[in-house]
């Protein structure tokens, strides 16, 4: 096995009673892009953390250039040329871009002087390299998520890393930024850098990767050349079974208009002049690039950043929403994008998470009813097939997909009239993804008006009855179901679609 840049042999790692890795072996050659696939909880993150020295393996060997590395710490890993771009940008929110890059790259000893000019120039150069227009002086907390991602990438490139790990780097990037990233990745490959690429978007893997390794339940299922594989085969490897119909078909005709927006604007969120109708039993997909204002629109509807002009109508009645509380009272539900921070409360039991939005109705006189709560939770656990040890298990003990189901259950319990979903399957593994799709579809079937934001084009196209495309804070076009992907994309980019 010579010529391997990185070689992991029978690596194991346990957390408490959970065996996250059960003897995984993995290899990476110089100049290749090696995709790592697996459902959430399959052990990808743990494997990455072991390679970057954030976790210590319980047993197993790590070799770089054929030499045993011994125990890795984040610092040693960095010195060996390992860089990682995490899903959630790992940056210091209070410090400037230049300093973030500098801290990540400097190998300086503690008492050395910080050369601020050099840092600024370095940051400027690295950012320019990847075509990002970000001031090195800017504080990280003032940047948007994709901008932060770009800073991360600049960091990794600046480190002159020989092994670059990308953990879902495109999850929040725009199309343009994604293309840029791919170009950079290919360029790095040419220079002999080995890359480990993690993504749930299978099409990206086919575009980019050379080999792919699939993890399942902490074990490596196999490594294959990408050109020998197809999507179905990969999915089968990942979930260990066939996933026949990914998107459940619509079986019902939409009813009356339930929810409409008229010239709806929210200056703070950059949303302007949005008009939209959602009918009972209908799923309206909200497509667009990141930064087009989709999440901001959802937040304005839900009252987190209340709208400052325009009308919101529910069943033809004008409603005013100034806070999430108002929204809940009116029967509007919102499953937010950031599941771990906003969707569920990780430390709290599943049952308590599920009744969180229905305190007033479910607990009359503010008295808690523990028995009723437990029954409600058991019902949802059964109906949504949530994998949990019981209603008292904390949400943090669940996998991402199951957490998302808990977040959904919270709003189903509220029996809303309108459901707004923001990236409902982001970071959710393939198995849970299709289950969530089925749940959404059955909700619509029962007469709910659903507005679904997604950056996953196949999802938008597969799920929606109509597709609203947003650009620069407003809805620019309304496309029918089963539109072609390139039509949607063109609309999102602001180009005239072919044939129109």
């Amino acid at each position, binding site marked *: 096995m010579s010529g391997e840049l990185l070689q992991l042999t029978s690596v194991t790692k346990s957390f408490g009673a959970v065996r996250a890795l059960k003897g995984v072996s993995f290899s990476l050659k110089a100049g290749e892009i090696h995709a790592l696939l697996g459902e959430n909880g399959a052990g990808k993150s743990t494997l990455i953390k072991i390679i970057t020295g954030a976790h210590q393996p319980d047993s197993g060997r790590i070799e770089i250039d054929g030499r045993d590395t011994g125990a890795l710490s984040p610092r040693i890993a960095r010195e060996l040329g390992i860089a990682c771009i995490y899903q959630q940008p*790992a940056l210091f*929110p209070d410090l400037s871009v230049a300093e973030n890059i500098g*801290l990540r790259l400097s190998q300086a000893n*503690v008492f050395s002087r910080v050369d*601020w000019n050099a840092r600024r120039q370095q940051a400027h150069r690295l950012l320019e390299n990847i075509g990002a227009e970000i001031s090195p002086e800017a504080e990280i907390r003032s940047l948007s998520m994709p901008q932060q991602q770009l800073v991360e990438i600049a960091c990794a490139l600046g480190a002159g890393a020989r092994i670059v790990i990308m953990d879902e780097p495109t999850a929040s990037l725009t199309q343009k930024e994604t293309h840029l990233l791919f170009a950079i990745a290919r360029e790095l490959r040419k220079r002999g850098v080995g890359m480990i690429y993690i993504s749930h978007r299978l099409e990206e893997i086919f575009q980019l990767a050379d080999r792919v390794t699939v993890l399942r339940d902490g074990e490596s299922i196999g490594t294959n050349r990408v050109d020998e594989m197809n999507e179905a085969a990969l999915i089968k490897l990942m979930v260990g079974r066939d996933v026949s119909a990914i998107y459940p078909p619509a079986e019902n005709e939409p009813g009356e208009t339930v929810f409409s927006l008229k010239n709806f604007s929210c200056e703070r969120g950059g949303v302007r002049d949005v008009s939209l109708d959602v009918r009972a039993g209908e799923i309206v997909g909200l497509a667009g690039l990141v930064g087009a204002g989709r999440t901001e629109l959802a937040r304005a509807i839900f009252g987190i950043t209340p709208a400052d002009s325009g009308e919101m109508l529910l069943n033809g009645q004008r409603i005013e929403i100034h806070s999430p509380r108002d929204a809940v009272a009116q029967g509007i539900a919102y499953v937010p994008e950031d599941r771990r921070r906003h969707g569920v409360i990780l430390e709290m039991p599943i049952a308590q998470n599920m009744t969180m939005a229905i305190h007033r109705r479910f607990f009359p006189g503010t008295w808690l009813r523990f028995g009723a709560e437990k029954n409600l939770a058991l019902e949802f656990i059964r109906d949504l097939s949530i994998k949990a040890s019981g209603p008292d298990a904390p949400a943090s003990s669940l996998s991402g997909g199951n957490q998302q189901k808990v977040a959904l259950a919270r709003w189903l319990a509220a029996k809303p009239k309108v459901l707004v979903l923001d990236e409902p399957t982001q970071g959710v593994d393939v198995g849970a993804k299709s289950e969530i799709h089925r749940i959404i579809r059955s909700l619509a079937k029962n007469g709910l008006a659903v507005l679904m934001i997604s950056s996953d084009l196949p999802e938008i196209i597969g799920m929606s009855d109509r597709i609203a495309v947003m650009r620069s804070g407003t809805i620019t076009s309304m496309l029918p179901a089963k539109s072609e992907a390139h039509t949607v994309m063109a609309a999102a980019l602001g180009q005239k679609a072919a044939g129109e």
Partner: protein
Amino acid sequence: MRKYFRELSVTGALTLLLLALAIFAPSFYSPQPLLSLAANASVSLVVACGMALVIIAREIDISVGSMFAVCSVCAGLLAAMHWPLAAVIAATILIGAIFGGFNGGLVAGLGLPSIVVTLATMVTWREGLQWLRQGQFVNLPDGVQWFGLSQKSGQWTLVIGALVILVLMALMMKHLSAGRYIYAVGSDAEVARLAGIPPKLTVFLVFVGIGALVGLAAIMNMVQSPQVDPQSGTGMELKVIAAVVVGGVAISGGRGNLWGVFVGLLLLVCVGPALIHLHIEAYWEKAIQGVIILLAVVAEGLRR
């Protein structure tokens, strides 16, 4: 400019106060009392520098007053045993560092919340000292006061010493990797760990650092009089934390700088004497201090 809003606004408030004094009570500016005031303030300044580091690292230390008392008494007893002054200074700083290290060990090593740990050590050290010493003053031998210098040069030594420490630490926080590591850890400890900065070690060392600075401050206080009061340092933690916060260091860590702390401390230190000079009754002092703290945070809150 926006970035330094807080420092500038506090400087503005200080300037206003100084102007008011210049107009209504010019006697405030007579040189000797001013020097005494400065020598006195230099003690708090040294502790405030340490506190700023602790708060930037997203921790807090409310045991500084008690540590200060313990260090003062230890220093006094050592000096009374006729140790050479240099040895007394070194030993006191070491004692401070050990006490700081105890806090740091519990906070960094066991991961306990610093506010609770230092609340516990504050009570324990204070009461323990009272139990052992029963409030007796320690009389110092000749040659300790003002380091054996004249009063004036002694006071200048203290003021300049404190300013040197301030400047050195401000430079360290801005221009040395060590200082930036503290900001990094305070901004996000987990990210710091991933970037190869050891957050636990950093927090531990910051506590050792404030301990050592408290030891030094105890010496600086001791040499200003021929006796050591074992009650000294009572309430110091509130004064110093208030100065740090008024000076624009965010209690949530990672933000602020020592120049702001310097100005904040000056403002709070000047309020007491200013009240006397402006003939305001003493019973307004606490209320005015409270209002200053509230105004500082409210200004920040409104700006956001």
